[in-house]
């Protein structure tokens, strides 16, 4: 089942019916708009753009500016990206540091009282996914979003399994198969929003009910996509605390 994805313009129009100051340059989203009597900051990646060192630093800079302002405004991380940019130059200059820096900036903003909400509306994969959408307190998605760690043809190449066998397995085994339903089952995607209804109230409700602790492993168990992670983590933590 493939659904047409919602565009960034549609998302922004739904979030900010009275207008906004969110712009896109080189595939990077930045800006803000009025929201619930205050404002909502928006950063992200549009147009299936790969995330490289410059993009990661630009986005992190916006997040740190927000923290410095002290306004505690919520930050929406809207994502329709490729994977991390794969190049010799990016790795030479420390892509791992730049992507981790962006994730740390978002985690710092969360600690400083900025509700952080991811909104996955297109593709995302691998390091770009970890550094953006997965570094928020809560990640929502719109139908038609298409997250993956790696596409099935590449998985076939690496695992040396035939593609048709993988496609068959993907129907019954959610833990490795790409796609929104499977990422939701793993607990990575908290909720799927309704694109036909105004997004502002849906984002507001997500912010009002932010989980206190990282509950992605609990969701993964409840939804069956990650059956044992919660129990394993709790057992390890229990054994170490009991010392």
């Amino acid at each position, binding site marked *: 089942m493939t659904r047409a994805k919602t565009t960034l313009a549609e998302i922004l129009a739904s979030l900010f019916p009275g207008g906004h100051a969110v712009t896109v340059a080189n595939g990077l989203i930045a800006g803000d708009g009025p929201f619930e009597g205050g404002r909502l900051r928006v950063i992200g990646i549009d147009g299936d753009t790969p995330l490289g060192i410059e993009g990661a630093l630009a986005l992190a800079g916006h997040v740190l500016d927000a923290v410095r302002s002290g306004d505690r405004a919520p930050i929406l991380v809207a994502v329709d990206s490729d994977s991390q940019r794969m190049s010799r130059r990016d790795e030479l200059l420390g892509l791992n540091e730049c*992507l981790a820096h962006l994730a740390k900036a978002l985690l710092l903003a969360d600690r400083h009282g900025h509700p952080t909400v991811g909104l996955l509306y297109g593709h995302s994969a691998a390091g770009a996914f970890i550094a953006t959408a997965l570094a928020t307190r809560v990640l929502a998605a719109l139908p038609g979003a298409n997250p993956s*760690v790696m596409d099935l043809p590449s998985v076939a190449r690496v*695992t040396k399994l035939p593609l048709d066998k993988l496609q068959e397995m993907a129907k019954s085994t959610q*833990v*490795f198969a790409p796609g929104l339903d499977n990422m939701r089952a793993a607990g990575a995607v908290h909720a799927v929003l309704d694109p036909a209804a105004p997004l502002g109230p849906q984002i507001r409700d997500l912010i009002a009910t932010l989980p206190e602790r990282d509950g992605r492993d609990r969701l993964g168990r409840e939804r069956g996509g990650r059956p044992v992670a919660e129990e394993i*983590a709790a057992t390890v933590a229990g054994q170490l605390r009991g010392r």
Partner: protein
Amino acid sequence: MAGPDRDRLSWYEASARQRLDALLDPGSFTEALGPAERRMSPHLPLFDLPRAFDDGIVVGAGVLDGKAVFVAAQEGRFMGGAFGEVHGAKLVGLLRAAVAAKPAAVLLLLDTGGVRLQEANAGETAIAEAMRAIVEARAAGVPVVGLIGGRAGCFGGGGLIAGTCSRLAVSEGGRISVSGPEVIETNKGAEEFDSRDRALVWRTMGGKHRRLIGGADAFCADTVAAFREAALRLIADAPAFDLDTLVAEQDRLQARLDRFGDCRDATDIWARLGVNDPDAVPAMDTPAFEETVAHLREATHDAR
């Protein structure tokens, strides 16, 4: 193992358990969810792949030079040290326990190719959970120190976890990057990255390059004793996790891009950093390399 053999043990050659044995004070290690409990991957049998009783990671508590520490050691020889569901959850459980128990440090002996593709969604999500938990531990005042020098290197999401640590120690063999050489070559072609050019791999991702540009805080000879000494030094000198640190990191990384963004090869960067003979760097022994690093401003900082 005791005495000189223990000290000279090669980090690169050792297993995860041998590294922990020789790193920690003798007899001090207590494993959590050890192999006797046989908590293996529930997913690998679907792919007709063998399982490991510890799912390729050893986690627990021990003592390092009299200080209580938590440790996690990935086994690079099982599935390339990759993050599967159980593997990742063991690391996450350890880090979450550290927030409450406040050991003197958490040591992460990273040795990983990244996400285990057979359990990709679980591995990817666990990496995100681990990064959040590292930040929480650091914010609670617990230094999280990465030690990297294993066969599998530190790739994919492992590279992002490394970038989240308070401090990193790396040896010559410890490669750190997001996309590995084969991944870049497969996606972009051998003109972009020839993964069989070993010298290119070491120059671009290897421990010396990471240390020279400030991507790692200590460079170690390939012995457990060297990593032990570095770990003790780094634990005592870990940066706080706060706005000042991240603003300083933003400035540091931006300055790196501004200064070296047009460089094609690591040797161009090293020359611009002020290394007298960049072509001699790969062959330098550890003392000569440390002498070189000592003259470079960029290599040593608290901006992480």
